[in-house]
């Protein structure tokens, strides 16, 4: 058969090399380094600020003082106890909140009746700042653990609800129709098609809920508490211990960071189909 030479051209004037995107294969080490740069800069600024006296120790303790405070709190057992109490509260509240948000979200996202019945009420309640519920909850549940856990549960259920109902509502209609023709029941449909499809938004809802659980934890522990990180903070405030205050703030930050990392890991574990089959043709 003939080859390209028969159809060869004599002039390639005006032609250009197409400007293709560079392949995005950044090395793992570099990626990690780029992530670490921001926090590292903040830490360096803190160290130099304290060392040069720009940051007065009465306002913000230096990194050295904070480390010493960590040691002191740890050896006295205060920090361990406080962490245990706080994490248990946040965990219990988060578990309840996420479960409630998830169930309500699936209900309103999947069924027309559920949406008409529930959505407006939930949206109404959602606009109430959860901090304003603190006094009411004190009256209802007393000043014990229940009020705190319920507050965290209420705070975390709303982001979960919004993400879930949105994700479920965006389920692929064509796919649902197809599965119905193969005789899949409603429950199986939700479990095997709708929820896996909604996972990306479920997980972003979970991320928001986790952050909010820490915020609600602080609010819950600042009031009449006798244990936990928040209690540690309010006593430190009374004695103007900025080093202990900083320790507590850092602990909240670390908890938030760990929670975020856990969800990222979860994303990779529960959605294996998202990482395969990309880019190949």
């Amino acid at each position, binding site marked *: *058969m003939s*080859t390209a030479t028969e159809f*060869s051209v004599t*002039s390639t004037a005006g*032609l250009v090399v197409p400007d293709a995107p560079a392949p995005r294969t950044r090395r793992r080490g570099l990626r990690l380094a780029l992530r670490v740069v921001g926090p590292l800069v903040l830490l360096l600024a803190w160290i130099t600020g304290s060392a040069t006296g720009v940051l007065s120790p009465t306002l913000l303790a230096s990194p050295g003082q904070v480390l010493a405070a960590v040691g002191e709190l740890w050896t006295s057992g205060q920090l361990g106890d406080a962490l245990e109490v706080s994490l248990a509260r946040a965990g219990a509240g988060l578990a309840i909140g996420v479960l409630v948000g998830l169930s309500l979200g699936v209900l309103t996202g999947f069924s027309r009746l559920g949406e008409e019945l529930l959505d407006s009420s939930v949206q109404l309640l959602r606009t109430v700042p959860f901090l304003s519920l603190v006094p009411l909850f004190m009256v209802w549940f007393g000043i014990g653990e229940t009020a705190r856990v319920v507050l965290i549960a209420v705070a975390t259920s709303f982001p979960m609800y919004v993400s879930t109902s949105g994700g479920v509502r965006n389920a692929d209609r064509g796919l649902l129709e197809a599965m119905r023709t193969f005789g899949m029941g409603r429950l199986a449909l939700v479990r095997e098609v709708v929820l896996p499809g909604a996972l990306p938004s479920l997980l972003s809802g979970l991320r928001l809920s986790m952050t909010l659980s820490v915020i609600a934890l602080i609010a819950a522990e600042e009031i009449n508490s006798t244990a936990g990180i928040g209690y540690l903070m309010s006593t430190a405030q009374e004695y103007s211990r900025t080093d202990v205050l900083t320790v507590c703030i850092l602990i909240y930050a670390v908890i938030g960071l760990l929670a975020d990392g856990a969800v990222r890991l979860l994303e990779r574990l529960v959605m294996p189909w998202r990482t395969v089959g990309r880019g190949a043709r």
Partner: protein
Amino acid sequence: MNAAAVHLRGLERRFGDRAVLDSLDLDIRRGEFFALLGASGSGKTTLLRLLAGLDRPDGGTVLVPQVRTVVFQEPRLVPSKRVLANVTVGMPRGSATRRTGLDALTEVGLADHTDAWPATLSGGEAQRVALARALVREPELLLLDEPFAALDALTRLRMQDLVERLCRVHRPAVLLVTHDVDEAIRLADRIGVLREGRLITDERVGLDRPRDPADPAFAALRSRLLADLGVHTLEETSP
């Protein structure tokens, strides 16, 4: 008329160990309609993506015109933009753009759908919007990636006529990637067959337009091309 619209020399593209395109040479002249046939996975779409600048070659020369547009297999319309905005997407706003957009929609017979949302269009209509979007930029090279593959047979025939007519008016160089041998013969000035990363066939279609599938020369070319694709037809196997 010997100026090039596409100039490829020694083009290589590998995915892992597999060379999808293996030292490929190809020239397409200005205004020439080139149809590329090949089985699934033969590298047709890879070649098109290289020409569109969506992918990088592992070796060789790729020269293409500055203005290139693509019609993909799916319409790929932005769901949140109305039809006219989809056609003029990425162009400067203004009445001039609006007018050229409207002209392009009129050309594809969708002048009364300018304010419709993409979700309300049928498959054929959406693909016509995609075609209008590709032509409104007056491309020197139009890349068609199996643009009719997802359409029903009747709509496909109408779309083929439309593309033929519009290409005669606008005269871009065209690379049509397709599985459909009849489609290639109906539309193309020249047909190539890609197998194992190389062009095993590259020939001019010597039939007069409009081309009739019942024409014996059409049928002969069809069975020859099918044989190149590894499909043997009755005419050839029977004595």
